[in-house]
């Protein structure tokens, strides 16, 4: 069974907490195995616990820094920010105020950061969800930035890599939030038409409309170890079915077993694996010391 506090962050709109993270200071305590880890060592290990393999949540910027070649990232469409299509007010709080708070807290204008980069020299378009911004719920800006990034990657002949995470819909944008699902699926047609790789990496937590749209129509679907992934959140399922969920339900490992994803890749291996998958799919290999012909010859 996973620690309870992980569950709490999944189904809610995710405004209260960024989920388990490691506090500043010399020593950090792993939220899963309770091991005290030297913070520098933990960070060197890509925020993965060296003892139990627990993958702590990262911000979008931390993730980009871990994946791309140094200084290769150029951001796209950073000027987009949410409008208020419904004039939404709940408990006296207007949506624009909620957005301003989220922007202040996360340092991002929306829950998706997009741009161009190289990964081990391979040119890619990137879209990375920021769970710290209203639980990476998919509103109009999330959908529009995603769509523009997919289309621009296609035009610039780049593979498209997406780190998908979401706590659910952006309730404050109502039906506009819902209709981002088809929008993102339409946008990746541009990549299909040019036979460019579209790879999603599902990271903890990944729920709702994001899982039910672009995240699961990719050419390859990868996930980080232990990531919780599904359509309905565990709390909703328990409420509706009055069933206790089995241990490991909706984990990346569970989904691999059930045939829903291609592979689980530990974070420290992601960079190499992504570059490798893209080269394999596009049949672009650097001159290798052991070519197909020489290996055949040496086999004889």
């Amino acid at each position: 069974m996973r620690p309870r506090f992980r569950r709490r962050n999944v189904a809610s709109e995710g405004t209260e907490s960024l989920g388990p993270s490691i506090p500043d200071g010399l020593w950090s305590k792993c939220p899963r195995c309770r091991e005290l880890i030297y913070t520098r060592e933990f960070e060197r290990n890509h925020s993965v616990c060296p003892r139990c393999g627990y993958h702590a949540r990262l911000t979008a910027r931390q993730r980009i820094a871990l994946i791309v070649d140094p200084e290769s990232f150029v951001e796209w469409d950073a000027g987009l920010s949410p409008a208020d299509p419904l004039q939404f007010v709940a408990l006296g709080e207007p949506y624009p105020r909620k957005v301003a708070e989220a922007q202040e807290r996360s340092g991002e204008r929306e829950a998706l950061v997009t741009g161009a980069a190289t990964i081990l020299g391979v040119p890619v378009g990137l879209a990375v969800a920021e769970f710290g911004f209203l639980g990476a719920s998919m509103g109009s800006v999330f959908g529009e930035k995603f769509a523009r990034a997919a289309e621009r990657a296609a035009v610039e002949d780049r593979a498209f890599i997406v780190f998908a995470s979401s706590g659910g819909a952006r309730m404050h944008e109502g039906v506009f939030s819902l209709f981002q699902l088809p929008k993102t699926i339409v946008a990746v047609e541009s990549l299909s038409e040019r036979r460019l790789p579209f790879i999603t990496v599902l990271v903890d937590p990944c729920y709702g409309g994001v899982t039910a749209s672009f995240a699961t129509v990719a050419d390859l679907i990868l996930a980080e170890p232990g990531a919780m992934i599904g359509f309905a959140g565990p709390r909703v399922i328990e409420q509706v079915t009055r069933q206790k969920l089995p241990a490991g339900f909706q984990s990346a490992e569970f989904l691999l077993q059930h045939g829903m994803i291609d592979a689980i890749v530990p974070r420290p291996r992601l960079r190499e694996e992504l570059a490798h998958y893209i080269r394999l799919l596009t049949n672009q290999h650097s001159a290798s010391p052991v070519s197909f012909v020489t290996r055949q010859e040496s086999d004889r």
Partner: protein
Amino acid sequence: MMQITAWDRVQLARHQARPHTLDYITELLEEPRELHGDRLFRDDPAVVAAIGRFGTRSVIVLGHQKGASTTENVARNFGMPRPEGYRKAIRILHLAEKFGLPVITFIDTPAADPGLESEERGQAWAISSCLQAFLRAQVPTLAVVIGEGGSGGALALAVCDRLLMLENAIFAVASPEACAAILWRDAARAPEAAETMRITAQELLRFGIADEVIPEPAPAHLDASGTIRRVGQVLERHLEELLQLWHKHGPAHARRLRWARYRAIGLWHEEPVT
């Protein structure tokens, strides 16, 4: 005339005596035949499919199916599709494409099934594939929301060339109860949430997401045959227009027009970045 609130519309949209998909199939199609199964796992009773003659031509119909009684509702899972329901819809769509038949869908579900087995069998994967299959469909497609358009579970059958809504139908990202529980921390404030979320047919028309609202001079549960007849007339008109459009542009371009429609939805601010 008394003001009808959004919450009233929710009650009307969910009314058990409202005509459901099979009623429309029986009344509007000549000699319809129901088609069953996803060819993978089992037949989902929450999604029905049929082929039949509509006016002068064969059409394929797909829709969510609620029950007219509590017993039937339980058997139909309250119209909440499991993954096999979406996979059934995909299979039937491909059948329509092979024979070049237009597709009409009837939308009426509170949500996709949120159960344990549905998750195990990939509910999210089934919905995204169904959305993609509808967006890619090589035939004209036409959706009518006849009752409850609940979230992604409804949307998966609704991303068509045209989206029509009955006057008392709704389309929402989440149920007003769920929205109230999350944002107001009190499910009892659902009536307030229903208003705030702008889920009525009139609002969706205003947003440009719905193309036409079909009037209900009397609520559908009080005048089933009149409602079905009016829906049939409006469908006939839109289908004629769509067939002409598809004939004029050809399937490849007509599909691009559908894509452009969904690509454009959303509102945002944009500032230049220095």
